[in-house]
């Protein structure tokens, strides 16, 4: 058969060959670049299992020759105040996340489903907030928080990030799609406005709330500038600030393996969120891009 139709067979063979070659080229190219991008993250994790002396071994050890187990992690807890930093970061991120989602849903629902005087002006005000980066606000915010007497307190770190304009905006977009009939039916049944919000609106906003919660948590977890300037008290230091001080000691070479153990510890919650909530994670990052 193949000999009987040599032309078609050649053509099929050639097409298959071209496909294979194309796949191979794409595969190799993607692999090369992906590994290049992945390498520093790999180095962070692998270095956290090396001894200090092995960190600068040339040629580099891909896997630790003197595997340290969790020793560098134990040292991280001894040499730094990692436990305190961790508790601070989690506490601050948790409060900001819950508040941002709750007040965001509350205000988003208010803007989406009610027509009250001044609604458009107020919503425009919220939108305009999203165009102003925090860097510009840091000086007056510092002065304000000092005036309020919150310098070096949890309130001082938490309050400016308690509600986000982006959260209100995002929740409004999703609350807008809740059918009015559903809300009216509940009203006819005699439900109060707040119980409608709690029993009907909040559950329907869950998927959007999940994305918002993830990006708010990430934003708070990674926040650097504000905790850096507002909390000089060593009991209030968060993970990014603590890691910066620890790895920037000027009088001696930093303990690199310990730094990498702290870095890995600081990244683990983010990796977990990414692995378990990949869809919400990426969705959240995409919509948050809007806020610049």
């Amino acid at each position, binding site marked *: 058969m193949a000999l009987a139709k040599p032309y078609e067979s050649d053509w099929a063979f050639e097409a298959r060959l071209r496909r294979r070659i194309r796949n191979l080229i794409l595969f190799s190219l993607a692999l090369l*670049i992906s590994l290049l*991008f992945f390498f520093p993250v790999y180095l962070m994790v692998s270095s956290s299992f090396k001894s200090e002396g092995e960190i600068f071994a040339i040629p580099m050890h891909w896997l630790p020759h003197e595997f340290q187990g969790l020793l560098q992690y134990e040292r991280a807890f001894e040499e730094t105040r990692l436990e305190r930093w961790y508790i601070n970061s989690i506490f601050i991120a948790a409060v900001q996340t819950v508040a941002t989602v709750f007040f*965001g849903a509350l205000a988003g629902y208010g803007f989406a489903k009610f027509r009250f005087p001044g609604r458009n002006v*107020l919503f425009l005000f919220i939108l305009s907030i999203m165009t102003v980066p925090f860097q510009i606000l840091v000086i007056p915010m510092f*002065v304000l928080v000092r005036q309020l007497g919150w310098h070096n307190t949890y309130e001082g770190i938490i309050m*400016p990030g308690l509600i986000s304009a982006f959260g*209100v905006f995002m929740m409004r977009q999703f609350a807008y799609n809740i059918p009015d009939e559903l809300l009216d039916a509940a009203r006819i049944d005699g439900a109060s406005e707040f119980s409608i*919000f709690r029993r009907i609106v909040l559950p329907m906003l869950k998927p959007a709330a999940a994305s918002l919660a993830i990006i708010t948590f990430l934003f708070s977890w990674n926040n*650097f500038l504000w905790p850096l300037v507002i909390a000089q008290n060593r009991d209030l230091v968060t993970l990014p600030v603590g890691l910066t001080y620890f790895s920037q000691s000027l009088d001696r070479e930093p303990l690199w393996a310990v730094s990498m153990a702290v870095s890995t510890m600081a990244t683990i919650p983010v990796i977990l969120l990414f692995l378990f909530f990949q869809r919400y994670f990426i969705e959240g990052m995409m919509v948050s*891009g809007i806020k610049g």
Partner: protein
Amino acid sequence: MGLVQRRQYYGLLFVAPAVVFFVIFFLYPIVIGFGLSLTDFTLLKPPVWVGLQNYQDLLNDRLFLKSLNVTIGFVLGSTVPVWVISLAMAVLFFQRFPGRELMKVLFFTPLLPSVVVVSVIWKLLLHPSGILSAVIGPIVGQTPIKWLFDLQLSPIMSVVVHDWHIAPFYMIIWLSGLTAIPPELRDAARVDGANALQSFLRVELPLLKPTAVFVAAISTIRAFQGFSIQFVLSPSQGGPLDVNTTLGIVIWKYGFQFFRMGDAAAISVVLFAFILIFTLFQLRLGRSDDFSLS
């Protein structure tokens, strides 16, 4: 007033907590920020009114002018490469090939660690006795390479670290733009005899314009805010010799090292003006594109 109308006022109740919050923690700081920029204020004594003096002083302020240079260099140096890399990677990951999903995850990993962690990892990579010095040193005939202490190399390293960290983010945005293009258009171009490159240049690229405007604008706005990478990566918070001192770092220095709040507030206003220009650019271009597409 009818019952239905009265009900609408509940909306005010729902938005009130957020609105009150933003009046205190946004509007008020904005107003005192402008006010402070017209004063001399060291936190110890009450602010002293100086009018536009702070702004005038900025014109001759060596550190501020330097930081303006550094910031513009960082914006120009970081944006264009990150557009090219992220778009190229999006086009690559848009193709079907074995192992694609796993590689996408690997490529995505730089986005997971925080900017501070990213900078600390790269401090290790760029250490004079580190791996990059050992690999590249022999090629250029100079070991060790002091990446972060060299006046020319150091700002380039800030760009490299920034782009490495953020490229996956823009890749995802490009990828969603590519996915949104109806496949029929691509198929039609192929049927008409266009090859892959022609179809990309003539069909996909023009349709990606809204995505391009978005990526261009937000990457520029973000680069203007450069702070954390320079702060952590450089040996001395913006050094050596201030070659990594961005506007963000200079605001921090004036505010929290020299306690010259008035000058720091004035620089914040200048930074605000820069960012506003690009925000308006994004809104204007983004909108006109929506019209032309509909």
